[in-house]
């Protein structure tokens, strides 16, 4: 590649054309994550309703 000062002037006749890349995808705005929630009151209300049974589990024996 040539030193700048010796560059062909004709080649420098370029227009100002910025790249579309000017805006980078980093500026994308994502939606928030959703976290699953538990509450001690879920269990609490079950206690008060006298229902300690929850689905899909059978009573385990203490080993």
């Amino acid at each position, binding site marked *: *590649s*040539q*030193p*700048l*000062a*010796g*560059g*062909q*002037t004709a*080649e*420098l*006749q*370029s*227009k*100002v*054309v*910025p*790249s*579309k*890349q*000017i*805006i*980078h*995808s*980093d*500026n*994308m*705005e*994502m*939606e*928030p*994550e*959703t*976290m*699953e*929630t*538990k*509450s*001690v*009151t*879920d*269990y*609490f209300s079950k206690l008060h309703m006298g229902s300690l049974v*929850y*689905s*899909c*589990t*059978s009573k*385990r024996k203490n080993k």
Partner: protein
Amino acid sequence: RMEASCLELALEGERLCKAGDCRAGVSFFEAAVQVGTEDLRTLSAIYSQLGNAYFYLHEYAKALEYHHHDLTLARTIGDLLGEAKASGNLGNTLKVLGNFEEAIVCCQRHLDISRELNDKVGEARALYNLGNVYHSKGKNVANAGTHDPGELPDDVKNALQKAAKYYEENLSIVTELGDRAAQGRAFGNLGNTHYLLGNFRSAVLAHEQRLLIAKEFGDRSAERRAYSNLGNAYIFLGEFETAAEYYRRTLQLARQLKDRAVEAQACYSLGNTYTLLQDYEKAIDYHLKHLVIAQELHDKIGEGRACWSLGNAYTALGNHDQAIHFAGRHLEISREVGDRSGELTARLNLSDLQMVLGLSYSTNNSMMAESHAVENSLNGGRARGRRYSMENMELMKLTPEKVPNWN
């Protein structure tokens, strides 16, 4: 009684977190754990909420720890629904930490259990989480390289296509459930996935849906996000006027919401858009606004970008004094933040500008030599229109009338 006090502390923690004070909530939950309880389901709920509180506080290592405790506990007591929830939360946390493979395993577990339990709501939420993990995974690999959206290596494309598939599956369930808020979230992230895949028309369609739902809910933050994302998509569709309109709405909402950081981002986007429209006065106006806020927020990276952009815009207008001033500031800031490529870009800019101004280089020999070395290493032949990249941007070349005959 000990038992009651653990519960009381946990309940206060819940109340505080619901009120948005996670930091205080954490203290109460930690205290509840200290007191302890015989009841493993209560403990599981405390761990889960501690994990979420730390997640919202961006303390992900701690979030990981507590969600992991929760998962272990849920398995111990055979609480399948609890296990599904803990797996989902663990998956989200692993995603943020960049551990995508493990995140996928956890989110998949969340999905499998939800299906096993015929829990449609859980299934939809797991699908959304999976979409997010694959989106992050794709974006993460994509960011390692430098290419426009739509020009992607296969592994990136695969991950993003999977993300789109999961968002679509989520959408079909939440549409069936009539959950508009969940639809809004899925549309937003689906739009961003299409954007990265280079499907800009599809991205616009998704973000328009997102916008509609945001307005339904009066959710101005979501509305602002949609405008910003629509602006980005229209840039790549080459419809700069439309992009400018959306960015203007973004800016308007950012000001209403009093969010200086997003206001700065909107100004920056507008500056870039007006540069693309070759309206340099307007571009300078917005880049200056961005610069002021970046300085106010002590955002050195943003300040450097603003100076770089201003240097280019002033160069385009032929205002070389200002161009030199900002190119010099850009050089200083690049050095300050240790941005090597920014520093070299700034050097090249300055040497070009000094040449245009016909300054003597005798004092700048070493700088010029270094610039040449860099230029050659970048394969940036002058003859092809030298490309300087900074943040994936291309330096605007000097306009012909500003270029003197050097021979």
